């Protein structure tokens, strides 16, 4: 039977080390380039093709075109699963995955955003 405590040297070494903790809310890190945060939408290039809606497994994006040709693009970040398929499917780069991840909110309606524009 060996004596327990194989970890003691490591634990004591750790005492001398810098702590591993980030000081998150105080200092925010820069997210990596590829980080997939909330979707950012640019109405300008959008053609209203609806590929994003079609490829969205969570149905977070809806695209509606009314009789007058007005396109309503709406997005619910609380449904979004941040897969980035919409960005890839968008033929005109109207959708970009942003860097924003601090999305917490107590009111559900504030998660929805929508753009109506003419095509």
């Amino acid at each position, binding site marked *: 039977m060996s004596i*327990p*405590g*194989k*970890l*003691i040297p490591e*634990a*004591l070494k*750790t*005492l001398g*080390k810098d*702590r*591993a*903790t980030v000081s998150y809310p105080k200092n925010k890190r820069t997210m990596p380039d590829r980080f997939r945060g909330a979707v950012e939408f640019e109405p300008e290039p959008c053609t209203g093709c609806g590929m994003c809606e079609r490829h969205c497994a969570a149905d977070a994006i809806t695209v509606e075109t009314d009789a007058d040709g007005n396109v309503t693009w709406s997005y619910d970040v609380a449904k979004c699963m941040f897969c980035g398929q919409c960005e890839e499917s968008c033929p005109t780069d109207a959708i970009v995955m942003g860097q924003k991840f601090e999305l917490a909110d107590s009111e559900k309606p504030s998660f929805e955003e929508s753009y109506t524009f003419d095509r």
Partner: protein
Amino acid sequence: MSLELDLATGLLYLLVFPGFAFLFAYGLTAEFLDRKLYARLQNRVGPPPLQPLADFLKLLSKESVVPDNATARIYNAAPLTGLAGVFTAMLYIPVWTEQAAFAFEGDLVVVLFLLSLPSFSLFFGGWYSGNVFSRIGTTRTITQLFGYEIPFFLAAFAPAVAAGSLSTSEITAFIGANPWYVLVLLPAFAIALLSLQAKLERIPFDIPEAETELATGTLVEYSGRKLALFRLTKDVELVVGAALLSALFLGGPYPAGSIEGFAGVAAGVVVFLVKTLAVIALLTVLKAVVARLRIEQMVSVFYRVLVPVALSQIAVVLLVGLYTEGLIP
């Protein structure tokens, strides 16, 4: 000294130092230092200094639920008994001089008994809260109690045998007068340390509250201020246990104990704090570097390893005593 003065000092001991106020403050501080050191050992930041106080106040302000199938009277009374026990125990342990606030021949036994009270209060509280987890937790508490009490008592009696007295204060004075006994008593100190860890139900002996098996065991149903009291009990028990160990094995306030006057008191308190914090730090490191044992492993370690060691320690102490008295060459 007049009776009034006696009464006044008595009350001071009780309520301020080393009684309620001091223990409350030191207990919470000890919890903070314990958590902080534990966190640092794990490479974390750990809680802010006033954390235990915030926890305590928050719990006081929370709803305190009595579960439907609990036996309300016992369930409600349990947290107080343990707390009362540990607060009382402190009065018999020397703090700034070798003389405890209250002392009499045989007070060591009382202290040891009072230190067992929290386990019993946990047992009653857990048993009567009517939850299956807490029932298993309480049976484990009691099983564990049987496991550690005997080695703990034996270890505590080793210095008592050396000093030839059952009074904590006398033992402290004896160790203070013969500091090399600290080395003789090292094995007993180690055993007492392990037993104290088991008493406090901390890793590796946190079997009764094993969070991964029993949620928090005995305390599963407790909430609000009753939980706060249980937590306070643990904190104070930690301090009192550390103080007892430092008094029995490390010579209490020595070498500061002999200084006269206010400086002596101050130095004594400093030495007391240093020694108890050292004991607490040892307990924390122990908590950080091992895995939890199973209940039967814990009992078997205590019975098969620690009890024989404690017995031989007493034999060694006897021999050393005989040797110093010149009875054996």
